[in-house]
């Protein structure tokens, strides 16, 4: 290989850019965690002293605690329902050919091209018309729509990687189709299913762009509560709540990474 000035310039600038990129990507989360341990009254940098008092305040704050509960509850439900719907649809798309298959596939990924604001107000209008804004359904269904593409992608990838031979062997041994799915297919793609469910959980748990519209008079999720709070005030309480969210998200990503590896995470 030939080395010259341009090569070196490119290597150096590339290294600088990468350094900058990783710093920028990690900095907000790191600073949120650092600031949450302040013992001061206000958000200053560097934080004054060290204490866990803001975490205690979160624990005592009904608004944030009930929002955390709502978020968790909705996210778990979304994960479960998305998993069932996602598996059924992905299985059908992967294993069978039927009229309208391309349409189904396109439909599954269509939520990705609709801007969140548009989906949010569309759903708000629909559910307001149905008189359902005080129930949990708008949030649940809105998050499901958002989660479907990610769930489908993960399960479709798992199904595509799986060896059909084992299923065929089971069928040769006179296993019924249901037995094959339950004893062969599901256990084989279990890591994919789990990570799909976790993807759905994070999508729902962290969403604010659609949720912001779907809490009208009803329940509020944690990110929306944070949004409303930050819109008017700015104190370490939010830093503590946000750190909790970071912790949840981080542990979830690490779990997926364990299940399917960093390679397929992307």
């Amino acid at each position, binding site marked *: 290989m030939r080395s010259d000035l341009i090569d070196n310039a490119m290597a150096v600038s590339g290294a600088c850019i990468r350094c900058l990129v990783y710093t920028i990507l990690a900095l907000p989360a790191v600073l949120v965690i650092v600031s949450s341990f302040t013992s001061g009254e206000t958000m200053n940098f560097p934080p004054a002293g060290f204490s866990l008092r803001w975490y205690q305040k979160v624990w005592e704050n009904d608004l944030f605690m009930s929002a955390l509960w709502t978020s968790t509850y909705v996210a778990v439900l979304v994960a479960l329902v998305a998993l069932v719907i996602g598996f059924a649809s992905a299985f059908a798309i992967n294993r069978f050919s039927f009229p309208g298959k391309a349409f189904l596939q396109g*439909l599954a990924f269509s939520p990705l091209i609709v801007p969140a604001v548009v989906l949010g107000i569309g759903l708000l209008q629909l559910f307001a018309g149905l008189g359902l804004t005080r129930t949990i359904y708008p949030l649940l269904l809105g998050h499901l729509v958002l989660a479907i593409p990610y769930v489908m992608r993960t399960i479709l990838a798992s199904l595509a990687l799986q060896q059909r031979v084992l299923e065929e062997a089971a069928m040769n041994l006179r296993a019924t189709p249901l037995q094959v799915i339950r004893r062969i297919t599901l256990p084989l793609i279990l890591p994919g299913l789990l990570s799909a469910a976790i993807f759905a959980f994070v999508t729902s748990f962290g969403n604010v762009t659609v949720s912001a519209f779907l809490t009208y008079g009803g329940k509020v999720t944690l990110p929306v509560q944070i949004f409303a709070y930050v819109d008017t005030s700015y104190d370490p309480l939010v830093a503590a709540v946000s750190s909790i969210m970071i912790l949840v998200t981080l542990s979830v990503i690490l779990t997926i990474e364990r299940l399917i590896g960093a390679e397929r995470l992307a």
Partner: protein
Amino acid sequence: MVLLLIGCLVVPLLGLLRSSFLPGSHLLEGSGFTLDQYVRFFSDSYYTSVLVETFIDGFIVSLICLVIGFPTGYSLARLPPSARRWRTLIVIMPLTLSLVVVVFGWLIILGRNGFVNSLLVTLGIIPSPRIFLFTRPAVMIVLVQQFLPFMILSVMSVITQIDPVLEQAAANLRANRFTTFRRIIIPLAVPGILVGFNLVFVLSISAFITPRLIGGNRVVMLGSLIYERIMSELNWPSGAAMAFVLFVSGLAFTAALNAMAGSRIITGRGRYAL
């Protein structure tokens, strides 16, 4: 799934489209069919300037993401798996983390008593804290950070498919890295670049949390305008019309990039590789 997506995606969109053709400034006020909302939007210079600024912002954000995201995505694709692990985690983290948390982190960074100010004052670069928030560049920086992972991942997924042997061959033929980059890597990576660019652009023009929290009242983007219109003023017909302007612009941009690529790259595998 079909029921869910039709009921909760297609139906709301159609309902919204219907409302955007209503006259008046309240949902229940009028009936009938009129293009008033659209005419008002496009004839008011305030709205059109917000629209144009939103597009310019989106374009600049996508461009910055491309320039700094490409080298990162490239290196990520060429690294051995062991070195890739924690870097991938850093890239994925902002995607999965709630947007408000990320934006709140930026308030700590850019705030008056924030990270950047205290750093600059301590280093003696500026004598007293400056105001970085509520400016357009601040909003754009935050948008870049939010959507950069999409660019990095798109570039990365396409680079992994390019055989490193091609680069070695170019080097053997005495091409320097820049020539190899320009003549070999870029042309082959075009699909990934377009997918990334498209995603970042569409996401940026529909942003509303970031302009609202980082930009305050001074930086208005189309997304935050829609949010105001619907949630504060309850002016549904007007908000719905704006939402459709936004939606159609995004689709048009995607279609334009598609046409440019001359293939089904973007709607085809690219979307699925997301």
